[in-house]
């Protein structure tokens, strides 16, 4: 144990460099800064709810449409004095991105029950990127929806003056329920999905970084020791080989946890800058429904997720340890990590886009065979109280870890550690 701690201290000192700390701090700062800037920009774009209207019909109906827009919190600017070209070139409207043209004959066509076209123009003034353009599109959709709704009400009022317009607008009410296991609650599927995503959004990103960084660190540590021949010095000393393996695994895991914590903080800062508390806010309204559905992670649930992530990291580290032995030098680590990266990417990305339960047998087998998948899907399983899936996943991860550690132990106890190598290119 004494030797283990001596080696662990040395490994941490070697891995946790000033450069690493500075790059992490820079990453945190950049995440925070981008999130903050984008958030402010988004708010500013959203706040600009202006519409320049050119009303050439000047009818009761067109005025009703304009009033409807104003009631819908649009700042309506009247540019009916000139034509569209004048409005677009007018300095007064140079910052405006949304124009609406109500042509002559709106009311007349309406009375004749003929369709009339209202033109809307979204102007990209500076660039096609960013949020302004998407907000313009969203505004147009919203405005058209409001216009059609107003016109529908107007038509009903004209045709059936004595009718209950509110009833006719929505003669049927829809109530959405969500069922999870034996639990049932009145809540929209959209809200449940948004809540589940909000709970699991950061998790796979953090696990991905964690696994990748830990693997890279341990591979670099082994390859570096081989390149510098410090490994030969250690192997010829009375160090227990198991302590050597475990100290490297532990140091990489400790630093990876610290770094991923940093990344997670940065990412949270970034996302909260962009989204504010919107997701959380909507979730709060329906909190009772989520509790009813059991969509709450208990302390035991968090513990199971933690164990699954821990074994996920340990599996990656054990595989990386072997890949590090195969690396001839630090330069070849970039190539040697590829098979591990591919496994991590598959287990990270596929469950984000497909439902594993509905996947084909081959895909299911592939995903479940990769030990990392079990950690990535653990929060979803815990949320739907599928504890046995998480438990079996942990058992499987532990077996995989044991197998790879045994292989690593075998390599470290023999001379293969020094003689194993895969050459790429003409490295010395």
């Amino acid at each position, binding site marked *: 144990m004494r030797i283990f701690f001596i080696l662990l201290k040395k490994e941490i000192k070697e891995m946790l460099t000033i450069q690493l700390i500075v790059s992490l701090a820079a990453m945190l700062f950049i995440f925070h800064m981008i999130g903050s800037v984008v958030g402010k920009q988004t708010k500013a774009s959203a706040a600009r709810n202006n519409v320049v209207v050119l009303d050439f019909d000047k009818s009761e109906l067109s005025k009703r449409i304009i009033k409807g827009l104003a009631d819908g919190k649009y700042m309506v600017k009247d540019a009916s004095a000139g034509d569209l070209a004048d409005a677009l070139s007018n300095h007064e409207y140079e910052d405006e991105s949304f124009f609406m043209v109500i042509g002559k004959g709106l009311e007349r066509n309406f009375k004749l029950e003929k369709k009339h076209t209202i033109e809307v123009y979204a102007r990209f003034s500076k660039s096609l990127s960013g949020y302004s353009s998407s907000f313009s599109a969203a505004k147009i959709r919203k405005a058209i929806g409001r216009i059609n709704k107003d016109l529908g009400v107007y038509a009903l009022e004209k045709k059936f003056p004595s009718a209950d317009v509110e009833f006719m607008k929505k003669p049927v009410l829809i109530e959405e329920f969500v069922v999870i296991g034996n639990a049932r609650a009145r809540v929209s599927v959209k809200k449940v999905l948004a809540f589940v995503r909000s709970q699991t959004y950061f998790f796979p990103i953090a696990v991905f970084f964690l696994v990748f960084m830990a693997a890279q660190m341990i591979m670099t540590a082994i390859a570096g020791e081989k*390149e510098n021949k410090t490994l030969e*010095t250690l192997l010829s000393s009375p160090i227990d080989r198991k302590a050597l393996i475990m100290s490297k695994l532990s140091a990489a895991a400790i630093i990876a946890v610290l770094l991923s914590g940093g990344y997670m903080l940065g990412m949270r800062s970034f996302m909260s800058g962009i989204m504010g508390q919107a997701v959380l806010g909507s979730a709060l309204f329906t909190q009772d429904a989520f509790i009813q559905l059991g969509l709450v992670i208990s302390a035991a649930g968090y513990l199971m997720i933690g164990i699954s992530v821990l074994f996920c990291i340990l599996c990656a580290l054990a595989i990386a340890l072997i890949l590090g032995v195969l690396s001839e030098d630090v330069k070849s680590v970039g190539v040697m990590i590829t098979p591990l990266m591919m496994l991590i990417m598959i287990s990270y990305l596929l469950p984000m886009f497909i439902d594993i339960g509905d996947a084909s047998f081959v895909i299911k087998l592939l995903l479940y065979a990769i030990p990392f998948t079990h950690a990535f899907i653990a929060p979803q399983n815990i949320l739907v109280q599928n504890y046995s899936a998480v438990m079996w996943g942990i058992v499987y991860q532990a077996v995989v870890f044991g197998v790879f550690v045994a292989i690593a132990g075998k390599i470290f106890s023999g001379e293969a550690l020094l003689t194993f190598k895969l050459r790429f290119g003409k490295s010395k």
Partner: protein
Amino acid sequence: MNAVIVSNLIKKYKNFEAVKGLSFNIKEGEIFALVGPNGVGKSTTLKILSTILSPTGGSVEIFGLDVNKDSKKIRKIISYLPEEAGAYKNLTGHEYLKFMASIFFRDKRRVLKTVKYGEELCGLKDKLKDKVKTYSKGMTRKLLLSRAVMINPRFAILDEPTSGLDILNSFEIRKTIKQLAKDGMTVLLSSHNMLEIEFLSDRMGIMNDGKLLACGAPSELKNKFSTDNLEEVFIKLTR
């Protein structure tokens, strides 16, 4: 008394035979040098004696211990300095010496005493507070040699101890090795520098193609081959 007995040593890597039936002895307190062209199996032999490679055939005994059966015990009494080795770049020289001493000794006072001896041996003084990555090649080599011998091993295996060093650094390192052998340490070294071999070694073995071609004291070999210097002996044997 023989400190090391190498008998008919063979080492094969897949289809390549690096060492082909090598035999030699080293007496206790002796400096024995293995010389030969590049790639003739010197470093492989040193690695087998350091217990980090296993022999394919033959036997190696170090102070009566077998490299195959007693490797753990051997590691407690030997010290190995690999050719062109480095140290941990993010540790200071002092931290590196302390780390290596802590591996060999449990007692804190013994560790401190060993580190102090290592610091005196390397002569790097205040530079020991700096990280190893700031060291020159010569400084690193001095640190590594000090590391190898500060634990006072019974048998030191030094693969090209002065490789790539300037005249002053090489001279200091040779002086240190000579003094350590006088104090009772058995030393096996490899080198390409014949002057160094002549200055340092009590006996030497000349290797080529995985075999030992000649073995004896430098003066004996010069007489045997009727030459004035070891370089000519080497050339006559390896050509």
